[in-house]
């Protein structure tokens, strides 16, 4: 029991101190950019009503989900193909190196040329393209770094190529795939916001910038907080999924380290 209390104390201690400091430090603030925390919290329920959540937050998250999903499917498929064939890998390496190095927000003006930027299409393409590279490159590395004994064993058991893919290659590469997907997710959140800053439309990022342009500062702060919470929430969900699907790997690593 005392142990549990201690752990809770450690987990909540610093956040509590920081929030208290923010609360009292900003209490009598007259600086328009740093409104009191109390004001921010009071405007929160009136700003983030159900209508706004349905109209702004859900579409943003849906676009992120679709774009990220496309990136995962494409990245794993292409990455497995490239990882399995040394020729394909040598052929595509410099090109991939270049595309990976392009900072994803730069794609926005290019995609705007093709798809326009008022609808969903341009935004989803932006998110998918930005998320693609970390997943793709990590899948290539994961497939390449597979234990050769595993591949030989599968071959000598006459597993069909399809079963080899599903039962040997993909599970073996999955720790790297998840590492890539985690990077992609944070890039995806960044692109979700950035893609909404171009062209007048709705969405979480658009709403926050709207507040900033109209100098509704406390509302803007609530938007920053919502965005932060979404980031934390997505990271938590991802970690849960990862721990579930990679339970075997985590256990194996612990044994190797002798924990």
């Amino acid at each position, binding site marked *: 029991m005392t142990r549990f209390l201690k752990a809770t104390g450690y987990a909540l201690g610093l956040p509590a101190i920081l929030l208290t400091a923010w609360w009292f430090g900003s209490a009598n603030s007259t600086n328009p950019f740093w409104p009191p925390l109390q004001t921010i919290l009071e405007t929160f329920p009136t700003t983030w009503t159900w209508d706004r959540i349905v109209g702004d937050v859900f579409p943003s998250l849906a676009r992120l989900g679709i774009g990220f999903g496309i990136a995962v499917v494409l990245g794993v498929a292409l990455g497995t193909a490239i990882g399995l064939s040394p020729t394909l890998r040598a052929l595509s*390496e410099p090109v991939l190196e270049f*595309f990976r190095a392009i900072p994803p927000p730069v794609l926005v003006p290019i995609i705007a040329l093709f798809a326009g930027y008022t609808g969903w299409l341009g935004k989803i393409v932006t998110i998918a393209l930005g998320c693609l590279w970390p997943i793709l490159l990590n899948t290539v590395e994961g497939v390449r770094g597979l234990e050769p004994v595993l591949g030989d064993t599968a071959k000598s058991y006459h597993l069909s190529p399809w079963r080899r893919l599903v039962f040997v290659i993909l599970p073996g590469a999955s720790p790297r795939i998840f590492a890539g997907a985690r990077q992609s997710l944070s890039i995806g959140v960044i692109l979700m916001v950035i893609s909404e800053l171009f062209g007048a439309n709705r969405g979480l990022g658009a709403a*926050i910038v709207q507040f900033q342009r109209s100098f509704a500062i406390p509302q803007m702060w609530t938007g920053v907080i919502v965005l932060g919470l979404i980031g934390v929430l997505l990271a938590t969900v991802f970690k849960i999924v990862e721990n579930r699907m990679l339970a075997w790997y985590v256990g194996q690593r612990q044994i190797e380290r002798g924990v």
Partner: protein
Amino acid sequence: MSSTPATLAPPARSRAANRSRRLRRSRDLWLGVTGVILVLVGAETLSRTGIVNPDFLPPVTEMYAALFAMLGEGWFWEALWLTVRGWAIGLAAAMALGIVVGFVIGSIPFLRKFTSSTIEFLRPIPSVALIPLVILIFGTRPQSAFVLVLYAAFWQVLVQVLYGVADVDPVARDTARSYQFGPIRIARSVIYPTALPYIMTAFKLGAAVALILEITAELVIGVDGLGRELGIAQSSGAVPETYALVIVIGLIGVAVNLLARFVERKALWWHPSVRSEQS
């Protein structure tokens, strides 16, 4: 295959292995060049034949013509310099801050437990959430980009350094302590060598993230630099120039990655991961 020490292998075989490796390497090089040429020719053909509207995707030759025209103009070099400067300053600050904070938090168990929940909470907050805030406070001045770059790169560095410090061998640390090493000496001769590979990873990740945020700040907020020129080129309909700037920014990204790899190799020449690659 290459991790076998050279002294153990019979010389004749190692020479043959060397030759086959060299052959493979030159074959890979040529394949890579072929890949690049295929993409360039493919894009050129798509545009010239009109399969993709040339208004959206101009021929590659036109992009490069625009690029070379840009190389002769003052604003291009000015913007390039501002972008690289903003990236370097933000990254350097994030590295310095992240390493110092990471060493302090990492080597004091109480601080590590006390701060871990806060770090886990603050880290996933996307740095773009700060964009409206920095616009209000700094406007289009370079400080806007600096804050975003610093925030984004700092967490990458801090988390890696914390992993690195946690990785220190307890026996080595206790040995140093029983030899009466002071805290500074322990940091320098025990913690630092263990944490260095992690610091190099932090540099690699941080360098890439810093470039993303620097360009984002220029593109979205309008801080002077290549990103802003890109936005201007796109909104004024100068399509070949837009692509030319994207190519330049991509090449900066490649250069940043190569630099990170080079620094890693120089700093970690003694580390097994680098030595097995070279032998």
